[in-house]
């Protein structure tokens, strides 16, 4: 079992692929990290995992999930950091098979006592109307590196044993770094 796994969840369509693009960005950054840190961490993309997310949550002591979100009270250009309670509250099934999306899978994992020791979720707010093309929107592409950098700093904190991570249940604006509570 790895110390940390980061799963970029998404689909090929439009901004819903932000999770995959974050993983690609992180893989580039990882090339500069010491081997001793790199080998303790798994980076992986997931295409609409549904209930199989529960099996993925078993792969590390700490799991970070990255996905597109559309949470009331947030806007494009903002991202959120949530724990499992926040995931269940804010990430109910949108485009998913048999209505088994991220929140439902986390709820089931919790019910089956299959959550990892620590679960974090980073969500990037996208528009609710996902186009059927295969590229990020201009706005999302412009903010990708900033979003990935936030997640990278969390990865390094986790691998270095730092327990004081971003406050959960918050949103922040990637343009001006303003932070606020999700309500």
């Amino acid at each position, binding site marked *: 079992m790895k110390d940390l796994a980061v799963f970029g969840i998404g689909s090929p369509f439009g901004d819903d692929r932000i999770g995959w693009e974050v993983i690609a960005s992180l893989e580039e950054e990882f090339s500069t990290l010491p081997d001793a840190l790199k080998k303790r961490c798994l980076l992986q993309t997931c295409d609409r995992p549904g*209930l*199989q997310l*529960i*099996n993925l949550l078993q792969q590390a002591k700490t799991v970070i999930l990255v996905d597109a979100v559309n949470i009331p009270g947030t806007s494009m250009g903002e991202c959120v950091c949530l724990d499992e309670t926040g995931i269940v509250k804010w990430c109910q099934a949108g485009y998913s*098979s*048999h*209505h088994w999306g991220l929140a439902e899978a986390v709820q*089931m994992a919790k*019910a*089956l006592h299959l959550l990892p020791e620590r679960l974090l979720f980073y969500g990037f707010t996208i528009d609710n109307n996902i186009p059927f093309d295969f590229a990020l929107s201009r706005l999302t592409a412009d903010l990708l590196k900033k979003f990935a950098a936030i997640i990278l700093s969390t990865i390094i904190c986790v691998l270095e044993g730092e327990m004081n991570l971003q406050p959960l249940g918050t949103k922040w604006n990637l343009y001006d770094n303003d932070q606020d509570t999700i309500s």
Partner: protein
Amino acid sequence: MNKIIKVPILTRVEGEGALNIEIKDNQLTQLELKIFEPPRLFEKFLEGRSYEEIVDIVARICGICPVAYQMSAAHALENCFATGITPWVREMRRLFYCGEWLESHNLHIHFLALPDFLGFQSALEMAQKYPEELKRGLRLQGFGNALVRLLGGRSVNPVGACVGGFYKAPGQSAVHELLQQAEALLLDCQSLLEWLARLDYGNNTQDFTAVCLSHPEEYPMNEGRIISSAGLNIPISAFMQYFQEHQVPYSTALHCLLQGQPYLVGPLARVNLNFHHFPTEIRQQMAELGLQFPSTNMFHSIIARALEVYYAVCEARRILKAYTLPAKTRVEVEPAAGVGFGCTEAPRGLLWHQFNTDANGTIINTRIIPPTSQNQARIEEDLRQSLHRLGLANEDSILRNTCERIIRNYDPCISCSTHFLQMTVVRR
């Protein structure tokens, strides 16, 4: 008295459907299962495409059973071009299918159907009382995903299959790892079957015609003739002479009838007609449990799925154990003008494809008949019989719950309707 019952959305199925019922003088005068998925028009999408694109495109018809669409299409095109496949490809395609059956059946058994039979509103509620059983279901489903990834590169819209075979052979270490998983899961399969055998499903005994593939030497997946419990025995090329699709005005999904009558495809049909092909250990456990097939209780579909789960793990173990790297992973394909047919056993039943191609292998036209379309008429027939047996004077909530359970028992993949449940009951 007029009465309206609405079931807004049929939960725990793939896609969207609705049910309209009219009851007049305590007689069921109208029953319409409405599928309102937008018509996918995949048959038109494929026209003008090269045969080399087809296997990847048809995988997008269904997110739950992409392997089935890929296999039926590949076989149809190989039939069109008179291309034979190697024994290695044949075995790998069976392994691929084992993966899909395991994924699909375990999802349905544990997370869609069992809450109905155990009296829970959802699998999440069921998890409080049956956590170990659901974890077992996840293990079995996860193994299925791993098999699909082994050959397909990924479990969602796999990309490893092609006309003539596969693009790449799995490595020996990956195969060995999965073999070990298969060995460990046999006990899970036995436990699952034993548990399901002891549950009470109620009596939904009906007369129906079962239809599936039949092969002289094996439990059918990719090859065989089409047979029925009423004596039909035809080559897959003769499908359209006996089975006719027609449009019903209230649904975007076509209905399919066998010589004018509804029929059943899927695990119960397969197990009823192919039980003798199961390995000894499976048949022995069934004898010890006192369960017999063929069964005419529609609710035994869940046991049929569990039998196929057990079979898929046994078959996967057999294939993985005998695995060797091939000299070539696919045969050379020479496209040709012609007509070809493919018919394989998707998790939900027969999936039939026909392709007409030109001399370059470009698709002129195609016909795709998925299993859920074939079961539409049977589902309506089941609903009529079951509602009459239940009693039409029952409260709306009881009628609605019964209808949902019956429809969900077929594991309908409504989104596959290539050419869920607001229920309206009108009582006069």
